[in-house]
């Protein structure tokens, strides 16, 4: 017996977007989430870029629980005590539809799941799906313990560290029982409360305007590679770090010294960041894994009776300065729903019938982004980016700009001299310059 046309596991932006598109087309979809309420397991740094959601909710920017639209973008290099920060204002970002919005995932994801329900999907919260039902090489439903729900197609939208993908051998590397630390980053996050008026004065924002800052951290001990982020919400701040899991030194002494939660403190206590956090009161702390499989290590995206979307599919993109995932999640959810609708016309849900999803992905900006930036890890994991450039840039500018009573050096030679002082030789600099093609 079929309980629905489609079962979607996970009500994040990917799963809910798929459910909305399906329900809008009269499909009987069940959307299942292990959180109660929906959204209570969901966390991210918190900026949604782009306008993919307009495909299914045209006025989402007016209706969704959003925080502030981004008008000010900062990109910075922090060394031990110094900072060089590029501060960008793009006036067009004031215009509707705005380029990006800061948001908090618990209320946002709850709203999006509510939109799915409103469109006609059944939303089940507080249910942890532990297994897919597999019969004759086909996925035909889901299981929680001994309870079953059946549908011709299951959409896996479980997020990072997906248990179902491991359990059913759908990852890049069949047979593995856990993911590789070289393919993951951990994001840690604190939310601080601060009066909206103080936020607007401190960050020079008008009402509803927001700031999104990303920083390369050159002040973290023992070669750990980490970036920091700082976003303004209505009356809160989202502050945290993202750490490459494979950059923790592999010895007991370091592990007992350099825990991920201390990296957050190194970011927050940097003099440039500390003053932005003055009087802000912590109200929540959390963490999330960020997949970074890249184009060459994507897991299966479809098969007999199933489709994979969002983080579970590996659609998280990072180039060291931005990390995007919510937009790809929404887009992949919509494309999977469309692929299902086409398969439904044929009334056939085999891998070949669902392979439409793959061709839609290939044509979309999702695959184009990942393909174009397939070698981006050469930069994002380049130790120089963290442990040489921030200090060399800061020391170079400081030397040029500090009046010492000595004759000044020229800007570029002085910065280059500081690169050499920080231990870079010309060959490694030239190699890095070549790698920047991948950015």
């Amino acid at each position, binding site marked *: 017996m079929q309980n629905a046309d489609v079962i979607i596991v996970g009500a994040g932006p990917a799963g809910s977007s798929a459910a909305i598109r399906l329900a809008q087309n009269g499909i009987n979809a069940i959307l299942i989430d292990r959180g109660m309420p929906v959204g*209570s397991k*969901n966390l991210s740094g918190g900026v949604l870029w782009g306008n993919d959601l307009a495909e299914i909710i045209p006025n989402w920017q007016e209706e969704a629980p959003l925080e502030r639209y981004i008008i000010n973008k900062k990109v910075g290099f922090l060394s031990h005590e110094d900072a060089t920060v590029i501060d960008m204002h793009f006036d067009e970002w004031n215009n509707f539809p705005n380029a990006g919005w800061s948001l908090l995932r*618990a209320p946002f994801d709850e709203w999006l799941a509510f939109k799915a329900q409103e469109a006609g999907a059944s939303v089940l919260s507080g249910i942890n799906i532990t297994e897919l039902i597999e019969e004759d090489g086909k996925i035909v439903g889901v299981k929680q313990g001994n309870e079953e729900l059946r549908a011709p197609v299951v959409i896996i939208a479980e997020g990072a560290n997906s248990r179902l993908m491991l359990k059913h051998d759908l990852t890049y590397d069949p047979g593995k029982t856990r993911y590789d630390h070289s393919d993951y980053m951990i994001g840690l996050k604190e939310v601080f409360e601060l009066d909206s008026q103080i936020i607007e004065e401190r960050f020079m924002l008008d009402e509803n305007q927001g700031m999104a800052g990303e920083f390369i951290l050159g002040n973290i001990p023992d070669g750990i590679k980490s970036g920091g982020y700082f976003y303004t919400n209505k009356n809160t701040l989202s502050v945290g770090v993202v750490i490459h899991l494979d950059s923790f030194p592999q010895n007991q002494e370091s*592990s007992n010294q*350099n825990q*991920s*939660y201390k990296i957050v403190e190194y970011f927050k206590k940097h003099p440039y960041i500390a003053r932005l956090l003055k009087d802000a009161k912590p109200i*929540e702390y959390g963490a999330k*894994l960020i997949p970074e499989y890249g184009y060459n290590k994507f897991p299966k995206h479809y098969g007999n009776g199933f489709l994979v979307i969002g983080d579970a599919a590996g659609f998280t993109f990072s180039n060291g300065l931005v990390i995007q995932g919510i937009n790809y999640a929404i887009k992949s959810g919509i494309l999977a729903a469309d692929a299902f609708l086409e398969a439904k016309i044929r009334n056939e849900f085999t891998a070949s019938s669902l392979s439409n999803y793959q061709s839609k992905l290939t044509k979309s900006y999702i695959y184009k982004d990942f393909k174009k930036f397939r070698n981006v890890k050469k930069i994002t994991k380049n130790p120089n980016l963290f442990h040489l450039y921030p200090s060399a840039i800061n020391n170079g500018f400081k030397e040029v700009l500090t009046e010492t009573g000595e004759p000044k050096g020229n800007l570029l030679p002085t910065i280059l001299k500081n690169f050499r002082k920080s231990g870079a030789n010309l060959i490694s600099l030239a190699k890095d310059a070549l790698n920047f093609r991948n950015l």
Partner: protein
Amino acid sequence: MSTATIEKSNFIKKSIKETIEKMDIKNKIGVTQWDTDSHENAHITVDPSICNDCPHHLCIAGCPTQCFKFYDGNMVFQYEDCVECGTCDIMCDQGSVSWTNPRGTYGVKYVQG
């Protein structure tokens, strides 16, 4: 740079490092909400006998809420403060950590997210 500034900047760096070394993460996570399941339903189990021979203890480095601690030659684990990120599952290549999601409705409950 004058000697005085150098001394001052070293002093600041040292004081930041000392504050961070002394921090108690357990104070910080007090603001986050949980609905904790009973011990027999713990969603992560650890076999500490394996951990003594582990060369790296990367679970300790990765865990954002200090669920792992190495005390007196023993790995001590508690699941209650877990935010279900999954980092220990990825970091442990010794076969000590067994990881699942908590039962439906249980575990961390983000209000902000």
